[in-house]
């Protein structure tokens, strides 16, 4: 993984690192279990402050993209990124469903009941599972 930083963009360096890791995960350049370079290596290669690298890695760990294993380094976490993208897709589907339901002028409670009924039905027919990822 090669990071590229833009010193003159005015965007904090740790944010640039975070964005690049996330982007690499989304494009598949980084996959589950891949190891990121050590903090020292990133700092020395890019001639940047090690604390800044630490900050980026911690933030990524907090967001569930990375797993920091003490003494052995930073690894891309299982299904990081992919899950977030799937959730965004699902959100879009639900949004358009709600738009199409609007003319029926259902109450919020009625909408919820319809959805839950359908969910129960699907579950009974095994059309939905536990999901591939863990929630």
């Amino acid at each position: 993984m090669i990071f590229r930083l833009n010193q003159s963009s005015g965007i904090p360096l740790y944010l640039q690192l975070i964005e690049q890791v996330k982007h690499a995960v989304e494009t598949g350049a980084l996959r589950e279990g891949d190891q990121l370079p050590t903090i020292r290596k990133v700092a020395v290669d890019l001639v940047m402050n090690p604390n800044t690298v630490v900050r980026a890695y911690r933030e990524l760990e907090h967001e569930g993209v990375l797993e920091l294993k003490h003494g052995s380094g930073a690894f891309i976490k299982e299904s990081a990124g992919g899950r977030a993208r799937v959730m965004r897709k699902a959100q879009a589907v639900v949004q358009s469903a709600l738009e199409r339901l609007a003319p029926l002028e259902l109450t919020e409670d009625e909408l919820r009941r319809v959805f839950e009924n359908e969910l129960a039905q699907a579950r009974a027919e095994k059309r939905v599972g536990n999901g591939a990822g863990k929630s």
Partner: protein
Amino acid sequence: MTDFIIETNQLCKSFKGQPALRGLDLRVPAGSIFGFLGRNGAGKTTTIKTLMGLLRSESGSARVFGIPVTDADGAFEKRMIEVRRRIGFVTEDKELYPYMTVEQIIRFTRPFFPKWRGDLEQRYLKMFDLPPKKKIPDLSKGMRSKLMLLLAISRGAELLILDEPTDGLDPAATEDVLRELVAIAASEGTTMFFSSHQLAEVELIADHIGIIDLGKMVVAGSLDDMKAQYQRLQVVFADSVQTPSHWVDGVEFVRQEGRVLSILASHNVDAIVEQARSLPGTAVERFPVTLKEIFLEHVRTN
């Protein structure tokens, strides 16, 4: 455990009635690489000399490793010996004993420091490509910088104070020195306090900065936070420029060029944008800010 390796409070110092430091407040967090910025004559070297106990301040206080370095009591020199032993120092003038060779000055310096790191000494001797038999005056300025850095690092210092460490170095040598500083910070956790007016190099390796102007700290804090909070707003007016009677908190500098107001905001940007939008006929754009812009705005107005 002290959270701040260096801490000064309202430090004042003048030379022949000319004030050099006018109430300087400086806080350098443990483990940070702190870039100390200022124009020539802003008070950078005076600050460093005061921290080393080489100059006496007139008022205010300063502590290094929590040890007072300004109180001139009977135990002052004894305390300063301890403080200096824990600091690696690279001065601006890079003066070293002119009659010694590289090898000799290393051998001469070593016994003063019980925590001397022979491994680092050998490593940097090789890495910096320093000729052991050469006399110090015959070294180039870059070589002398590297030699001073070697001596400062090898003593096992907890704090490196570097006064213009890359001054006079060519770009390749500058890159070498910065890379080594970063490597040391990463592996040894050494706190570094370095003065510079090379904004680009500060932006590279510092995580904290302080800007000193006319003997006072005008901005200080985490560089990333500063970059996240500071923004430049460009307010374009359809007709004539109208400014509010007073701007909300966070507006640092406002400049007008034709129908455009350029605002440097240090925080509270959303509220400032809202205020600018409420002015008649405006379009507001926001841009990220570089360290250079922050620096220039703050020292320009003073």
